[in-house]
């Protein structure tokens, strides 16, 4: 028995090592590619003597993160708040509307075409209107970020709430479950995987919404800093801001993915 066990162990070991190696390669490969691209960029800029206002070297961009961090940070937080508030508002409204749609065909018929219509307006075209309505303050940006989150969540949540199998509903009927029991015990949990795939989209698009809102009218925020640094040819600051914006999206996405992994365990 012991011999067999040991044999099984040594058979499992190389397998485990192989899995580990593969996992390492999977993580290392994109990192290496990224570093190689940065190096190519750095040397390209230096060798061809590209003027810094056209394209800064990565090292210049890195210096901005070190030397001008307070400037970046003071513009990061407003965009962060706008994105998060927009994310919460847009998704909350979308979820509530989806629940209403699933319970009432009339509500769906009345509001769904309007939701589609709003979704077809390009966010860049809608932003000025919203800034005119809500002023240049926080509200307009939150509304834009919310609008951009809203539609994917609405569509996915409706599908999720309807994804319950007919047999599950028969089971509920045999147990004489009430409408609210069906909703809380069956429909809502069934919809969570759908909801999270929408929230992952919303996590990155809400940042886009906030930045677009800032382009139309703001003196603070990553969007405002992007415009400001472009017009003043501070390209290193521009690039640093772009990286920071992408970092904000990644952060939001990571938070949503993490909560998905904790909540949707099936």
């Amino acid at each position: 028995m012991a011999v067999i066990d040991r044999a099984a162990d040594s058979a499992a070991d190389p397998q485990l090592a192989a899995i580990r190696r593969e996992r390492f390669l999977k993580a290392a490969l994109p990192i290496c590619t990224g570093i190689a691209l940065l190096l190519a960029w750095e040397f390209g800029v230096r060798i061809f003597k590209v003027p810094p206002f056209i394209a800064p070297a990565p090292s210049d961009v890195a210096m901005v993160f070190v030397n001008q961090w307070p400037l970046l940070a003071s513009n990061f937080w407003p965009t962060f708040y706008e994105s998060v508030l927009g994310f919460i508002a847009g998704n909350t409204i979308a979820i509530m509307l989806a629940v209403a749609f699933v319970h009432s065909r009339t509500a769906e018929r009345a509001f769904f075409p309007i939701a589609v219509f709003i979704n077809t307006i390009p966010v860049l075209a809608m932003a000025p209107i919203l800034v005119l309505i809500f002023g240049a303050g926080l509200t307009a940006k939150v509304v834009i970020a919310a609008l951009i989150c809203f539609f994917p969540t609405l569509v996915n949540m409706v599908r999720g709430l309807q994804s319950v199998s007919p047999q599950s509903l028969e089971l509920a009927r045999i147990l004489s479950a009430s409408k609210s029991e069906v909703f809380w015990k069956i429909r809502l949990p069934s919809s969570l995987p759908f909801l999270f795939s929408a929230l992952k989209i919303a996590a990155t698009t809400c940042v886009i919404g906030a930045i677009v809102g800032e382009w139309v009218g703001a003196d603070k925020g990553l969007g405002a800093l992007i415009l400001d640094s472009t017009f003043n040819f501070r390209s290193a600051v521009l690039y640093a801001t772009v990286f920071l914006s992408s970092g904000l999206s990644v952060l939001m996405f990571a938070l949503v993915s993490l909560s998905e992994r904790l909540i949707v365990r099936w």
Partner: protein
Amino acid sequence: MGLDLSAAGVTPKAAVLKRASVRFGQFTAIEDLSLEIEAGAFYSVLGPSGCGKSTLLRLVSDLVPAASGSVEVLGKTVEEARLAREFAFVFQDATLLPWRSALKNVELPLEIGKSRGIRLPTGGRTPRELLELVGLKGREDALPHELSGGMRQRVAIARALVCQPRILLMDEPFGALDEITRDHLNLQLLNIWQETGVTVLFVTHSIPEAVFLGQKVLMLKARPGRLKEVVDIDLPYPRLIRDRESPEFIRYASRLRDILEQC
């Protein structure tokens, strides 16, 4: 099993159908079906596809209404019987809620309707004991996707038993399982039936399964669904897998096949 009563000339009935019909739009699934289901008996339900086997179970369990005729379950209307949790249903696929553990799935019927005064049984087997009964001790916390198809179906059976139903309606519950698992679950089901005295209506496509399990086989015919014949299977319990090779068993099976071909 109601033997005392039958001696007095009254066999208690689990369900009585009188000229019951079920229609889906223009389509007649069941027509003029009259049937008495004896309490405590094990019925296999057999017939060609489209003969209304599943519809019969759904009619008894108040999932589809009778277009005409009447259906009584334990002397009550189907709705009263449903509210009293007199019957439980086991579907072809286990229909477990994927986010609930095996134990939580078995507990589901006890959570539903508690606040609305639906009769919930007390003093029966606990969900944990039921999982042990179906051979899943130690897997209480497993999520459905961590269990095999046979295990999931056993969780579904435990869930069906948790409210101590008097009628167990099973719609091809083992149809999707491999033969070995199916044999094993057939034996387990017979044990549960003999121990609890529950009335079973078991829909199947398999003639051997129908003979192996049932005391009686309800043969239905298709287009429209009607009762063709009720065949008594006089084979003693406990039945063993190897009994399926016995001459009597084979005689019953070929007789059912003959009837099926006329349907």
